[in-house]
C-alpha cells in the first residue's frame, strides 16, 4: 500500500489539498467572469487524463472543456487503412503498427486486425523494435508511421537504426501530423467560440513554447502548455482563466519541468534530417497547409507511398459517424446517434471510439 512516508515527487501532483485550493481559485476566477468560457484540450492524452482524475466533476458549470483533434489515430483518414491493406494484399508487405491503429475500420470496412493471426500485421510497442523485426521478416516491411511531434522523433530514431543496420526492406508509410498547423486551422474557423487551448505537454517537449508564438497574434485565444498530472491540469485551467480575466492573449508554459522555449534540439534535428512539411489530409477536414511531415525526396526508396504508388487517401466516414465533427470540437460524442449503442470500443464504427485516447472512447469510459 502507498504510505504517506513513501510519497514521491510525483505525488505532489496528485495532492488533494493542493488540488482543492486550485479548484477554489478556479471557482473564484470563473465566478467573476459571469459568462461561459470554453477551453479546448488539444491532446488525446489530456482528454483521458482530465476524465480519469475526475477534473470535470470539480469544475464550475461555466467552465467548459472541449476535446480537440489530438489523437493521431482519429485524425488519420480512413483511406490510409485501405492503403495499408493494399500493401498486404497487392504488394505482399508485412505491415507493422502501433496497437490502436489495427482496430480502425477503413473506408471499405476492413481492418488490419484481421491479418494479425497470419503474421502479415505485427504490433510493436516501440519503434526501437523495427530494425530487429525487419531483419527477421522476408520482403518489404512497412511501418505505419502516424503520430504527432511526440511520436515522430522516436519513429525516426528506429528508422535511422534500421538504415544503419542496412535494412533495405524497412519502409515508412507516413501520416505524421503537426499540432501548430491544426491550431491555426481551428482558429481560422471563427465559429469556434474558444477562449483558450490547454496545449499538449508531450508535443511541447519536442517543439517548445515558441512554436506556438503565432497564437499571440490572434485576438482572444491564449494557450497554456500543460502537463498531465491532476495538479498540472488544474494549474493550466487556472492560468487560462487568469489570462481571460486579464483580457490577455499569450502563450505560457506551466510544464516547465519538461518543456523549454526552444523544445528538444536533438529531436528537432532528427526531424529536419529526414522530413519535410506538406499539406496533409486530416479526417473529415481535408488538406491543411504544412500540417504533415513526410520523408524528404532523397529517402523516397524508403517511402512506401512512393515505392508502391499508393493512391491519395480516400476520406469517407461510415454513415452516421460524427468523428469528423468530434475531432474539431464541434459536437460532443453524445450528440452522435451511434455513440455507445451501435459504436462501442468492442465494435467501433469510427476512430474516436477505437483509440484509447479517442474522445468518444474516453467519454464513454469515464462517463463525462
Amino acid at each position, binding site marked *: 500500500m502507498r504510505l504517506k512516508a*513513501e510519497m514521491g515527487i510525483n505525488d505532489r501532483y496528485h495532492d488533494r489539498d493542493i488540488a482543492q485550493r486550485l479548484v477554489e481559485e478556479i471557482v473564484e476566477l470563473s465566478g467573476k467572469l459571469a459568462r461561459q468560457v470554453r477551453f479546448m484540450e488539444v491532446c488525446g*492524452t489530456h482528454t483521458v487524463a482530465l476524465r480519469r482524475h*475526475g*477534473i470535470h466533476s470539480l469544475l464550475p458549470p461555466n467552465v467548459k472543456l472541449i476535446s480537440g483533434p489530438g489523437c493521431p489515430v482519429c485524425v488519420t483518414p480512413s483511406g490510409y487503412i485501405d492503403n495499408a491493406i493494399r500493401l498486404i494484399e497487392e504488394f505482399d508487405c508485412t505491415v507493422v503498427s502501433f496497437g490502436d491503429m489495427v482496430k480502425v475500420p477503413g473506408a471499405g470496412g476492413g481492418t488490419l486486425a484481421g491479418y494479425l493471426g497470419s503474421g502479415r500485421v505485427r504490433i510493436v510497442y516501440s519503434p526501437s523494435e523495427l530494425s530487429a523485426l525487419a531483419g527477421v521478416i522476408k520482403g518489404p516491411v512497412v511501418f505505419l508511421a502516424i503520430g504527432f511531434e511526440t511520436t515522430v522523433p522516436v519513429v525516426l530514431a528506429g528508422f535511422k537504426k534500421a538504415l544503419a543496420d542496412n535494412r533495405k526492406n524497412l519502409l515508412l508509410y507516413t501520416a505524421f501530423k503537426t499540432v501548430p498547423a491544426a491550431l491555426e486551422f481551428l482558429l481560422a474557423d471563427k465559429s469556434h467560440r474558444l477562449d483558450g487551448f490547454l496545449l499538449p505537454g508531450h508535443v511541447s517537449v519536442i517543439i517548445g513554447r515558441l512554436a506556438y508564438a503565432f497564437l499571440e497574434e490572434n485576438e482572444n485565444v491564449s494557450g497554456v502548455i500543460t502537463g498531465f498530472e491532476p495538479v498540472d491540469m488544474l494549474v493550466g485551467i487556472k492560468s487560462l482563466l487568469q489570462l481571460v480575466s486579464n483580457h490577455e492573449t499569450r502563450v505560457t508554459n506551466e510544464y516547465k519541468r519538461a518543456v523549454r522555449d526552444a523544445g528538444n534540439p536533438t529531436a528537432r534535428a532528427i526531424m529536419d534530417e529526414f522530413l519535410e512539411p506538406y499539406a496533409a489530409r486530416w479526417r473529415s477536414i481535408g488538406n491543411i497547409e504544412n500540417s504533415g511531415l513526410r520523408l524528404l525526396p532523397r529517402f523516397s526508396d524508403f517511402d512506401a507511398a512512393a515505392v508502391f504508388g499508393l493512391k491519395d487517401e480516400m476520406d469517407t466516414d461510415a454513415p452516421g459517424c460524427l468523428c469528423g465533427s468530434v475531432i474539431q470540437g464541434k459536437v460532443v460524442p453524445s450528440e452522435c446517434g451511434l455513440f455507445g449503442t451501435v459504436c462501442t470500443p468492442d465494435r467501433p464504427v469510427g476512430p474516436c471510439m477505437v483509440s484509447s485516447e479517442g474522445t468518444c472512447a474516453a467519454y464513454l*469510459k469515464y462517463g463525462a
Partner: protein
Amino acid sequence: MDKHIRLEHGSGGVLSRELVEQIIYPALKNAAYPALKDGTDVSCSPSMCMTTDTYVVDPIFFPGGDIGKLAVFGTCNDLAVSGARPQYISLGFIIEEGFPVADLSRVLSSIAEAAGEAGVAVVTGDTKVVGAGKGGGIYINSAGIGEKCFSGDLDPAGLHIGDAVVLSGPVGAHGITVLGAREGLPVGKSLVSDCANLFPLCNELFPFGASLKFLRDATRGGVAAVLNEIVAGLSVGILIRESDIPVSPDVEAAADILGLNALEVANEGVFVAVVSGDAADSAISKLAGHPAGKEASVIGTIVADPAGKVFLETRIGGKRMIDLPRGLLLPRIC
C-alpha cells in the same frame, strides 16, 4: 522417454501409457489416490459445490507462477469464493505436438506443489495431443469439487446502503506481469504475479455469517468488472476511493506507462468482498493476519445513487465512472 511431445502420446497406445506412467503419475499421485483413474470414488458431504475452468495463459511460465499453478489455484479459488472448501480436482491437458517434455514436467511439479498447498487431491485426468501449430503449447482444463462450508447467501441482491466493499490485496499484479512477460515489455523486474490460494482468506470471512454478503475473485476484467457485476440491475451503486485501493508502485508505474488501469487488469490472488458496514473493521483485521491479506482494505461503500453504477472518488477528490472493461489490453501509442 522422448524429449518432445509427439502425436502418438495422445493416441491411447504405447506412448500414451509411457507418458502417463513415466511423467504424469509420478508427479501427481498421492497416498490417498495412488492411481489416477478414468473415474475415482470420492467421499462427499451432503452439500457440495462444483466448478470448472480452462487455462490458456501465454506465456506458460511467468514470474510468480505458471499454467499449472494457475490451473490448481484458479479452480480452487472459484470454489472458495462460492463458499466451499476445495477437495478434489480433475486435470484435462491439451498439449501441442513438439511441446518439451521437460516443460510438461515443470508444469506438473508446480501442479503438485500447488495442490499440496491447497490441500486438494488430483483424482482424475486426461491427456490429448494436437498437431504442431494447432495449440498454444499446453492448455489445461480443471474441474473441482468441494464441500460447502458457508451456508449464507452471496447474492448481491441482499446488499444494503452502507455495506463495505473490501479488497483482499493489491490489484493488477498478475495481468501486468503476464502482459509484460508476453510482450517483452520493459516493465519492472520486480513484478510478480499474485497467483495464490484464496481459501484461507475466504475462510476467515465465513464466520461472519449473514454479515458476509458477497465474495468473488477478481480475475479477468479485474476489480472493475466485479464491481460492475455486483451492482448491475440493482437499485444501489458503489462508490470507491482511489486513495484506499492498494496497488504496488511497480504495478502502478507499469500500468501508467502502458495506458492501462490497474483496476481493469486481471488478478489471480485477489477477491472482492462486501460485508455489512459494522463488520468491516473486524473483517480487515482477520484478513490482515494472512500474508496474502496483509494489505486488505475497505475500498468503498454501497451507496444509493447512482443506482447500478460504479463511481470512483479520485485522489484529488474528483468523481468519475468505473465502466466494465472493454476491448483487449493494447497499450496506447503515444
